[in-house]
């Protein structure tokens, strides 16, 4: 009898420790949707490059601006989706969306990510185009890896997959779009659906 009570107490302690340090209402479905947006974006970019009159897309061309617009749209849509779905999930779980746990998650995710973004822009300006895709993949992976301490722990594995993919891409310069599609598209969809079926469907 009493033993069960102690086991319950230990379980409570564990759950309170988790709840107070990790933001657990991240929605797996938002990962799937972000992956779908990324794949659609990648297909669109591929078509633009195919149709362009020149074999290379230059920085000041119409095509390049369009590609940037597509990338920005994918990013904004993904963030918006993650926000809306996590808000819905947090309402169900009773966890507050804006708490010290979620703030910590955002800060720890954003610092490596913004660093990678700035690095990517400098690569673009200095003409190291081939390294942009690997660098963004690696830094995104590092962001996820870092963020995993403050949210669902299994995001760690997604982070490691991105880091590995980015590193491999370093030796396949010129195929960045395909590596991006594989990472931001396929990896997100696979990981998001695993999370969704594991954690959300039953509840």
């Amino acid at each position, binding site marked *: 009898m009493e033993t069960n009570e102690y*086991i319950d107490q230990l379980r409570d302690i564990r759950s*309170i420790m988790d709840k107070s340090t990790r933001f657990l209402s991240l929605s797996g479905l938002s990962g799937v949707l972000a992956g779908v947006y990324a794949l659609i974006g990648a297909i669109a970019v591929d078509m633009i490059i195919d149709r362009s009159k020149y074999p290379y897309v230059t920085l000041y061309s119409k095509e390049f601006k369009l590609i940037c617009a597509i990338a920005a749209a994918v990013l904004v849509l993904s963030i918006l989706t993650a926000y809306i779905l996590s808000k819905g999930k947090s309402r169900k779980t009773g966890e507050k969306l804006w*708490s010290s746990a979620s703030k910590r998650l955002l800060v720890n995710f954003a610092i490596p990510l913004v660093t990678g973004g700035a690095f990517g822009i400098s690569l673009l300006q200095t003409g190291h185009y081939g390294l942009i895709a690997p660098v963004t993949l690696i830094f995104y992976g590092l962001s996820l890896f870092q963020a995993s301490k403050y949210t669902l722990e299994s995001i760690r594995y997604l982070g490691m997959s991105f880091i590995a993919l980015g590193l491999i891409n370093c030796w396949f310069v010129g195929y960045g779009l395909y590596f991006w599609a594989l990472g931001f598209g396929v990896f997100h969809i696979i990981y998001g659906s695993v999370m969704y079926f594991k954690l959300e469907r039953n509840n």
Partner: protein
Amino acid sequence: MKAVIAHINKAFDHRIRLGIMSVLMVNEAVDFNRLKELLDVTDGNLASHIKALEAEEFILVTKQFIGKKPNTTYSATENGKLAFKNHLDALESLIRQSR
């Protein structure tokens, strides 16, 4: 068995006190509202348990101002962390013994 029970700390013998200590073991400092929200308790209830833990010198209360707003944060003392750890170890060995 008796030796183990001696380590079960009376000061932690309540769900809310266990909760407060659990939060403070893994967070450097936490304010009143965050504790309230995590443990899902009323103001008065939380305040009285905080007072009990403070009296044991297991937690440290820090009062400061953010602008004009008073802000009180709580953190676990070294003593409190040690006592809580011993309490957890005792719980664990009680469970193990009864299996």
